[in-house]
């Protein structure tokens, strides 16, 4: 394999149990987002746009749909000679097989792949965040600091800081002096984004130690980062000030979708930084003679005959005459029949809301209908 400067590794094995009904059949990174995307499109597109074109995707939980979606990687221009996307599920060895026991273990179990790719740096990403970011600047900062590890951080409101892993840094240099995992009394509001750049030999050394340590939970945040700090390694933060959203819960997933509907969205999907996705072969959507559509995003293959207000509509969705869809996210091929009402809801793929039926949630509790269910 051709040598690469920076190898991307996307942790895409998470179950996403807090997304409840939406991850019954798919892994969290394969959950639809923003009208035509899947969550994993964001880290993948960020990699490609940042010039990283060798990317490993570590899968584990219900990987079929994710594997199917990634295919050869051509949708992201990642079907490359000597590069591209590599799908890395757990596999059996002479002494048996292990699931990935934690984020660090997932990389540890694939150290042979990392060696094969032979990078100078390894970029580790999680597959459950929505953001657009140029990793090449972060890599540049890593090199300039002569760092062992660079961690992407994001300023969160102080009152939310106790929910995150907090990096306490030296204001002048950005060097990390202390790491607090979900602290009651945070000393900083710089939350870890779960984005790490490691110098490869350094990473390999720590992973090999951690891999055989039976007392470890094999997690970057829990085990490796504190140990590295303890050992006096050079850990630096890299501050990101764009839009960044963890979409690990129903409410945050819904909110991130709604964020796209603002008149001036907090982050631009329409700009030069393209988000790539697997495009279905479908026509422009059709808006019927009596339809009304406002403050919404709608994609190809849908047909709208009713009212859609403040909602995100994926491909192949049908909204019947007199039906009303508000404040909702409708996944591919869901059907909302004539006169049905959907408010503050997320409908998964192939859901059918029968004529006249109602699905209503509210701002504090978004109603979720699981894939293929028929209501009413």
């Amino acid at each position, binding site marked *: 394999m051709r040598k690469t400067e920076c190898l991307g590794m996307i942790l895409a094995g998470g179950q996403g149990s807090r997304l409840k009904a939406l991850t019954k059949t798919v892994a969290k990174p394969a959950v639809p987002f923003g*009208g035509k995307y899947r969550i994993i499109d964001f880290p993948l597109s960020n990699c490609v746009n940042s010039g990283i074109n060798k990317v490993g995707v570590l899968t584990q939980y219900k990987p079929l749909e994710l594997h199917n979606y990634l295919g050869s990687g051509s949708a992201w221009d990642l079907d490359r000679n000597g590069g591209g996307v590599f799908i890395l599920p757990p596999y059996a060895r002479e002494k048996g097989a292990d699931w990935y026991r934690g984020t660090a273990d997932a990389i540890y179990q694939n150290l042979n792949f990392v060696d094969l790719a032979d990078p100078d740096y390894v970029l580790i990403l999680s597959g459950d965040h929505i953001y657009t970011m140029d990793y090449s600047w972060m890599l540049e900062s890593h090199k300039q600091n002569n760092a062992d590890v660079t961690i992407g951080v994001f300023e969160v409101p102080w009152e939310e800081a106790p929910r995150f892993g907090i990096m306490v840094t030296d204001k002048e240099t950005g060097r990390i002096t202390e790491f607090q995992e979900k602290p009651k009394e945070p000393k900083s509001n710089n939350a870890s984004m779960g984005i790490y750049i490691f110098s490869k030999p350094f990473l390999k050394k720590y992973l090999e130690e951690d891999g055989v340590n039976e007392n470890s939970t094999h997690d970057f945040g829990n085990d490796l980062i504190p140990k590295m700090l303890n050992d006096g390694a050079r850990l630096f933060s890299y501050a990101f000030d764009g839009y960044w959203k963890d979409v690990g819960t129903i409410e945050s997933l819904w909110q991130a979708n709604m964020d796209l509907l603002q008149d001036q969205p907090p982050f631009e999907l329409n700009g030069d930084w393209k988000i790539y996705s697997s495009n279905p072969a479908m026509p422009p959507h059709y808006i019927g003679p009596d339809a009304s559509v406002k403050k919404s995003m709608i994609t190809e293959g849908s047909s709208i005959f009713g009212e859609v207000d403040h909602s995100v509509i994926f491909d192949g969705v049908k909204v019947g005459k007199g039906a009303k869809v508000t404040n909702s996210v409708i996944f591919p091929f869901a059907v909302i029949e004539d006169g049905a009402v959907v408010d503050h809801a997320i409908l998964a793929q192939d859901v059918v809301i029968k004529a006249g039926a109602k699905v209503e949630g509210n701002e504090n509790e978004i109603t979720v209908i699981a894939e293929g269910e028929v209501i009413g």
Partner: protein
Amino acid sequence: MKSVVGIVNLQESHDLVRELAATRAVEALPFAGRYRVVDFALSNMINSGINSVGLMLPDYSRAILDHIRSGKDWDLARRREGLTYLPAALPGKDARKGDLKDIYANLDFAELSDKKYVLFVNASYVYNIDFREVLDFHKKSDADITVIYKTANEDKEGQTVSIATSTNGIVNDIAQSNGVKKGSKVVMSAYLMPVPTFAYIVRTTYDRGGQDFLLDGIIRHAGEHKISAFEHKGYVARINSTAAYYKANRDCLNPEIWQELFMNKERPIFTKVKDEVPVQYKDTAEVKNSLIANGCIIRGRVENSILFRGVKVGKGAVVKDCILMQRCDVEDGARVENVICDKNVMITKNRWLKGVESFPYIVTKNARI
């Protein structure tokens, strides 16, 4: 369909399309918000299991080459078979008009393939078909040639080739006329025949100075061959004039036609992928009976129109009975009615522009009004 090689002909006459086809072939005209006309012929081929397809290039081929590239978006970039470009005959070598000289120049493509049949189609037609049914029909009919036709559902103007058939479905007359009546059987310029029959017709017609495959090849040889006729019952539009182009686009606003052409799960229409964002409808948007392609941002009123990828409609702007191609920008308060805007046209603030339904006003590429 492993026994069939496809040839897609991109040589529809430009004469009646004028402005829109000044720098591109008719088959390269943008269609229905995200397609080009040629997508139908190519998608029909691959959806019918024809994996070896030759593309006869038109005079202006840049738009076509840029659109199709390796053929990957149609699944035609293959290790074996796939897409083959068939360039036009050298102009210096043969000055005659028509498509026949180009077919003749590329005859070895069909002859050297290991296929039994050739399916030759003109790509200026919009339809969704399963050619497997045509092959089955052909095998059962015991004919030398099968032509595909559509029964006209209204009177049609312009040069049209139609057929008459005997009760057993065999063609007993084929002729060109200027306009046809409702109910006529109109040839869709798609033919299936064994490769040797195809080669024989092309060679003998070429040697006798023929120019046009249909007129000089098929019609003049009609007496020598047993021709059967396969009726395509679905929607068909031939794009051979500005009016036909305008009408066919607007036909796609009929949900049944939209469904039939594009939403068949077994036979999707493929096109070049552009990774556009879903359409953004803002607070002031008001859209009725329209097709809106991804990448559009709508703040104004849109009615009975087709908007291609990346079109912007500003606040208070009105777009009525229009076709706006890629990246057109209708600024705040502007108004366009019965207008076809080619790519990248800008209608600046508060300008009004109006054509009539039978004669849409055409704005050429990159114009700023």
